[in-house]
């Protein structure tokens, strides 16, 4: 139990003194996960919309499949993307393995099912009523879609937050694709994993507390934006 209180004290010390390595790792964690969630949002929210607003054969099966992939282990995604980016793999020539760009690809792939799936759920929550109202007022299809999107924005923001949370807190992809290279691909989660395996439990705990604090700040900020 000592480690937990020691971890708290160490976390506060690290934050107050702005320990350069911790700051650097934290900034890297944030920038990689935010980039991933941005790309994923740009791709996945429209895809979610496309699926929700179109009726086609196998739609239900497709949604089931997407939902199944919510629980894909991060290490499995890591392995998959590793095999793609490895020099012997199909994208090996791009030299993205063990680089931050590779990690962004990995995390984007990881959160894609959850982002698409939750977008569909978010839109479904409002689509039926709005669709009828808007259509009855003579809106075009596109206008209906935007109206629904607008009404569903709270749930869509929640989707983005969840995607961000999963990207920031995962360790499988970061470890396999990034390689935990000090000063280059080391992020909070891989640093926690490393410190734990090396027995510096206070520091590991402190880094965990920092990760949660960041998550809190980002959540507050986004909720603020959403509230307006």
């Amino acid at each position, binding site marked *: 139990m000592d480690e937990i209180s020691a971890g708290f004290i160490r976390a506060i010390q690290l934050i107050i003194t702005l320990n350069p390595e911790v700051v650097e790792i934290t900034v890297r964690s944030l*920038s990689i996960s935010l*980039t991933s969630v941005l790309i994923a949002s740009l791709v996945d929210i429209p895809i979610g919309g496309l699926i929700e607003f179109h009726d086609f054969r196998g739609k239900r099966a497709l949604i089931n499949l997407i939902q199944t992939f919510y629980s894909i282990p991060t290490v499995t995604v890591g392995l998959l993307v590793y095999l793609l980016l490895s020099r012997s793999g199909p994208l090996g020539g791009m030299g993205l393995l063990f680089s931050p760009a590779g990690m962004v690809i990995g995390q984007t792939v990881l959160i894609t099912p959850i982002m698409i799936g939750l977008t569909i759920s978010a839109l479904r929550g409002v689509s039926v009523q709005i669709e009828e109202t808007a259509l009855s007022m003579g809106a075009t299809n596109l*206008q209906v879609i935007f109206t629904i999107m607008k009404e569903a924005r709270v749930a869509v923001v929640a989707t983005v937050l969840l995607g961000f949370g999963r990207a920031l807190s995962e360790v499988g992809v970061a470890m396999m694709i990034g390689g935990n290279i000090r000063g280059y691909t080391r992020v909070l989660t891989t640093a926690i994993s490393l410190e734990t395996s*090396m027995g510096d439990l206070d520091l590991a705990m402190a880094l965990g507390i920092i990760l949660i604090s960041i998550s809190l700040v980002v959540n507050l900020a986004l909720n603020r934006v959403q509230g307006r």
Partner: protein
Amino acid sequence: MFNLVIEMERKLLKISVLILMLAMICIATQAADSNNSRLKLVTTTSLHDTGLLDVIKQKFEEKYNNVSLDVISVGTGIAIQYGERGDADVLLIHDKTREVKFVKDGHGLERRCVAYNYFNIVGPKDDPAGIKGLNATAAFKNIFQKGKADPTKVTFVSRGDGSGTHSKEQTLWKAAGYNYSNQVNTSVNRWYLEAGSGMGATLTMTNEKSAYTLTDTSTFMAYNSTYKGNFTLVPLVESTIDLLNVYTAIAENPKKHPGVNCEMANKFINFLVSEEGQKLVGGYGMDKFGKALFFPAKGNCTLIGCSSGECAVPTNASCAAA
């Protein structure tokens, strides 16, 4: 209402463009430093966790200031996997059999022995298997017999992760006269636990279970000092000749894996075997642990079983691609 909707569309479009630009900037900043030449060193956790590679990285980057040494620390098993797929530029590992095969299969250029130390068999202070003072082979025999007789008293924790240490352990079981997969690592053996983790995690488990394990000296010492007195394991068999642990550097072969940073890999190996590199290796740990964690290979070739052509001499291997 529809004017409002059209307004919304415009706004959304603007926001999307903004987000897209932001994402581009993020990616660009992350890609920016990739112009700097990078040397990907895949190595074992035991070398990395001691902090030795931080020192080597610093000195090497001072010498060649246009390169960034990327240290990726994994078990020797995965390190060789990475090497075979061309994902590393240079390997620093400790498993002679697999190293020789790696070079023979054309994945690596030349082996160079750079450092050595000894594995330790560590265990609880009261030593229920009575191995203190024995050599490693005899100690393994004792652990096997006592463990089989009473698994509640004598337990052995294995890395079980295909690492160099795991490989050494299997060699020792064989030397002790047991078949590893039929007699030692079987599901009925309650005294034999496969951790499937790195050295640090395995040591923690061994400590919690008051068991025995095979560890490299350096991780054990580094771990012992960071774990702040919660550690009850002590070295029981150390520095016997059958516990020798030799670290080797091998550059990736550009003929087999085009695109690897071969020139820099050779420079790195030559740095390690240079006067300066060998001094760094040999002196590391003095101030922190009171004794050296590694010994330089230079001058100890016969002891560590490295031929004079492979032992701490510079490499001139050609970097020509196929």
